[in-house]
């Protein structure tokens, strides 16, 4: 049944684990101090002398589980448990919630462990044992007694951003009262070696929009938020609206002119009833790849002209967490604002005239405002969300 008036959608409970830790206060403090925790990982299978930087969860955190499978489920369930606790909602409240999980790699780390095991690593192990992408959300539902519908998004790097968009839309339309939205991608060899095969991994440091940018640095993370029609406290962020579309230029590249991405940003603002001059800041997707940053910069200038709101990127703090990035970057961005600052794009030093975008280089004061969050991915995916912490 459709409500007569669209419901507001609040971000009420949240939790995240990433390279900066598993406590939000500590993560935000790390971002204020420009802390970077990067590990170099060698390509042991193909070329042990070579390697690339990677943003792993802290060793003391990820080593709490003895093997990949228990870690995969342990990280997920612990993160969700914290988000549920943070929401202040009861098990009864959440029994009918929808679960929206977004991931690029799904449970491939668990299968990789099977391939690495001499006993099970025969050919076709995946084919022999796969039981569907939906098993991850089903495990969450089972653990937390949630009987609402489960949606598992696999739209590459927009996966959990699309989870946020559809969860918010369903709440807004009165189809759901609460939603648990999860973004989860754990370190996996398919992704690490796969992105290297595409020559997309940076061998140096993360510096989106910088003239010397040389690629992405991957990261692992899990983030969970509770979206709800019920406001928790005055400072809760609201999702105003969003949009998504497919840029059909190329399966692995967006049209560098930025036309489709600009269209998605405009559609998101239209959905959120926001004018360009009302946007306080833009969290860019800012992958640090040559083409992606060029596309996004062109799109931002197409929408906002040369006088755009401050632009920043989150990835230099936590890596490119692919499908998890939608939820993770929403949490980190909003928690920084709650703490009173817009995070800088650490690593950025040298402007690129081709981009004409200079992102924030130091933390900037932040308060109430309207914010744009951009996410793009393989398969032409483009998703933009509009959020606010204004009353």
């Amino acid at each position, binding site marked *: 049944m*459709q409500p007569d008036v669209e419901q507001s959608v609040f971000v009420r409970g949240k939790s995240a684990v990433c390279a900066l830790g598993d406590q939000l206060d500590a993560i935000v403090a790390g971002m204020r101090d420009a802390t970077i925790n990067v590990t170099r990982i060698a*390509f042991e*299978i*193909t070329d042990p002398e070579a390697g690339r930087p990677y943003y792993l969860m802290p060793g003391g955190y990820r080593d709490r589980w003895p093997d990949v499978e228990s870690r995969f489920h342990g990280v997920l369930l612990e993160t969700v448990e914290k988000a549920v606790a943070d929401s202040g909602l009861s098990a009864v409240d959440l029994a*009918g919630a929808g679960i929206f999980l977004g991931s*690029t790699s799904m449970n*491939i780390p668990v*299968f*990789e462990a099977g*391939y*690495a095991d001499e006993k099970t*690593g025969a*050919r*076709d192990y*995946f*084919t022999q044992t*796969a039981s*569907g*992408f*939906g*098993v991850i*959300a*089903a495990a969450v*539902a089972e653990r937390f007694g949630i*009987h*609402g*519908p*489960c*949606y*598992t*998004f*696999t*739209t*590459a790097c927009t996966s959990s951003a*699309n989870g946020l968009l*559809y969860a918010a*839309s*369903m709440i*807004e*339309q009165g*189809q759901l009262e609460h939603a648990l939205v999860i973004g989860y991608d754990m370190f996996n060899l*398919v992704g690490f*070696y*796969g992105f290297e*095969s*595409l020559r997309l991994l940076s061998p140096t440091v993360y510096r989106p929009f910088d003239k010397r940018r040389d690629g992405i640095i991957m990261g692992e993370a899990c983030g969970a938020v509770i979206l709800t029609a019920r406001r928790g406290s005055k400072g809760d962020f609201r999702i105003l609206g969003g*949009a*998504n*579309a*497919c840029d*059909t230029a190329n*399966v*692995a590249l967006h049209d560098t002119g930025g036309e*489709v991405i600009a269209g998605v940003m405009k*559609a998101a603002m239209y*959905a959120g009833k926001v004018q360009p001059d009302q946007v306080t800041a833009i969290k860019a997707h800012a992958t640090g790849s040559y083409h992606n940053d060029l596309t996004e910069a062109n799109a931002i200038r197409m929408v906002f002209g040369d006088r755009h709101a401050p632009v920043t990127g989150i990835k230099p703090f936590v890596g490119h967490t692919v499908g998890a990035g939608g939820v993770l970057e929403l949490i980190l961005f909003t928690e920084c604002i709650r703490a009173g600052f817009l995070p800088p794009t650490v690593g950025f030093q040298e402007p690129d005239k081709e981009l004409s975008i200079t992102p924030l280089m130091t933390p900037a004061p932040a308060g109430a405002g309207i914010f744009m969050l951009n996410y793009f991915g*393989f*398969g*032409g*995916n483009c998703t933009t969300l509009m959020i606010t912490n204004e009353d």
Partner: protein
Amino acid sequence: MYVHGTAVLLRAPDDAQTALVDKVRQQTGLYFRRVNRFILLSLAGAHQCVAGRTPDPATMVCLTTENGSVQDTETTLGQLFHERSYPKPYNFINTMSNTAAFYIAQSMKLRSPNITLAAIQFAFERGLELARTDLNRGAAEYALVGGVDEAVLSEANQCRFGDRLVDGSAWLYLSRHKTHASGEIAQIRSFSDTRSALDGYAKMDLPADPVLAFGIGIADAEHGQWQAVRPGSRVLDYRGRYVYSGSSAACGICGFFKGHEGQTLVHINKDRLGNYTLLTATVY
């Protein structure tokens, strides 16, 4: 949501891939390089659904699946662990199963939302819910919703289903506009246990003698209690006709739109946690 096109495509898993390549080339006039069986199945089913029409550019694509691209995931894992080499770029890119939905949008010149979605047992029903959400919010005028899965040739599946294993690709072309529609998806409702699902079914506003169909999560022993709610109902055993694939529910629901004029289907399915989803489909 009103139905403006349907397709059900079933292939034996040992059918040559070149036959699918030829079929897609005939449908689209395009030759797709570096694509896999999952992508070809998706393209062939989606294009069959729109049947030579030019879809509205504001068509949302929602591809639902249980396992996504099994072939390229297996190939990529083999390249890493058995050949000890970097994955081939296009094998790696195609492990991201949303590339299939991308190629559908590209070949039909669609720029609307493009989603690939999974859910245990209920993937197709959940995809229809996302389509309804996008149509409601004005993000799309039409939606192309499909269920696609390769036959997963695991030993367990082969023991259970034998030569009934098939690849399946089933699609609906939907909109909010009734004009020229051939039917509609009126209700999709979810329940957390058998009692509430039976009660919900009893209270549904339906014609006197609906057709009942059971998804793969409903055991044969459970059929009787559903038939008892509406004794005049007839059971359609599409699981016998459409045999097994992850997309069997999509195949059953989409297949109903051929040869059932004037009838209403109630499709009932259950997941392993005991949740039910009931969907109604009416053919004009």
